[in-house]
């Protein structure tokens, strides 16, 4: 599973990266801090899951999310935010998760396991790779 993160040093980013790298099913993690670069990579590589930071003036998070869904609607989006006021917008975009900072490990795990479950379920060829 490929996971890309659009963030520039926001709170909880370290935790996300650490937790992801501890997971045996995650084959690639990239952290990108520019929306245009991020989208380019998403378009070329079609990751299974992306995390996008909200509430950072330099990152048009919701708009980027919408564009990720336009690239391929099956790419799962999780927004990361310090505030809860974008949750409704996140649903409009078609997000699959919304992590409020400080991020709780339990909630992160729940999102990741749902993502894995649905990704593997949708992609038969990956079933053999599943380690859980």
């Amino acid at each position, binding site marked *: 599973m490929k996971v890309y993160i659009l963030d520039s040093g926001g709170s909880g980013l370290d935790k996300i990266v650490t937790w992801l790298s501890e997971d045996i099913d995650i084959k690639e993690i990239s952290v990108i801090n520019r929306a245009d670069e991020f989208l380019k990579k998403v378009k070329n590589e079609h990751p299974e899951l992306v995390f996008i930071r909200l509430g950072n003036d330099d990152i048009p998070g919701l708009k980027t999310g919408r564009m990720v869904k336009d690239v391929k609607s099956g790419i799962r989006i999780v927004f990361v935010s310090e505030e809860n006021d974008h*949750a*409704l917008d996140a649903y409009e975009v078609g997000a699959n998760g919304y992590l409020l900072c400080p991020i709780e490990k339990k909630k992160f795990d729940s999102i990741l396991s749902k993502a894995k479950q649905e990704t593997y379920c949708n992609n038969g060829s990956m079933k053999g790779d599943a380690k859980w």
Partner: protein
Amino acid sequence: MIEVVLVDDERPALRGLEHLLKKYSEISILGMYTNPLKAIDEIGKRKPQAVFLDINMPQLQGVDAASRILDISPDTDIVFITAFDQYAIEAFELHAIDYILKPVTPDRLRKTVNRLLEKKSLTMPGSVQKLQINCLGKFQICWEGQESIKWRTEKTRQLFAFLLHHQGREVSKDEIIDALWPEGKIEKAVHQLHNGIYYIRKTLERHGIDRSIVNISGSYCMKLGNVDMDISKFNECCARIKKYNDIHDLKEAESLYKGDYFEGTDWVWSEIYRQTISRKYDEIIIKLADSCMDAKEYDQSEELLLKGFNKNPYEERITELLLMLYKITNNKAKGIKHFSKYKKILQKDIGIKPGKKIQKILDSMK
């Protein structure tokens, strides 16, 4: 087909939702409940793909109800429908597939239905392929990557296009006959209409397009399922442009417009809409060319404006921008050449001279 259960403690709201959802041929309503406990019990037995749930129920909070539903039917997707926005985070924590604020609009509900369909197609291999319907440029229908459908006669094709043009709305027999068989005997026209519908249904069947994708009801109402239709995408883009004015939407809308609506046909009934869409496209070209110019992408801007000019040479804002572009890029020769072409067309086709503003831009070129 997506099987759903509706739960809302208010009967009128439940009926309202039923009314909205009945418009989607791909949705099948298994049951509707005002009593959440009874609903949960039923959901446990029938395991629907989705439950539409109102969150403000006195007997049981919506979030708790959702969590109990997931306990007994973990693969069921929850769609919250609510008048409150404060539960959206909790909805995410329950992995609810959608969260809709009241009042529910058909457009918003379409999004939800598409999400459910998409999930279903992802979990059912082989059904991922989408039916493509192209109305911009040559009118064609085909399965992704396959040859386009051939119609028995030109009239059958036109009849299908007519129903598609009015999709979601019932059209009367008289309306269809007036549009497609305006001359001749009414009995013959009725006969041809019946035959036409018969052949359309046969053709769809032969191509494996079932009623969840394209459905024509007895009262001549076409309903579409999860299809990939350029004109809907174009209109969605235009709506987003109006709201956000984002360059990516402009680019997408520009690339979707492969030609006029039902290009190459002389179908009078589509004429007004063809012009409306064509004008929308002119606006997109102008906005996009303008943005490109701001971003100093002059070549791209010129290419767009020339394309726009070839399509509609009378739109003076296109020539205005083009001359501005030649002025900025110090290309007087091109400016003069374009101006004279523009002047000639105006003179010849409508007998008028270029506007003062355009003349002024030309004069200001060094």
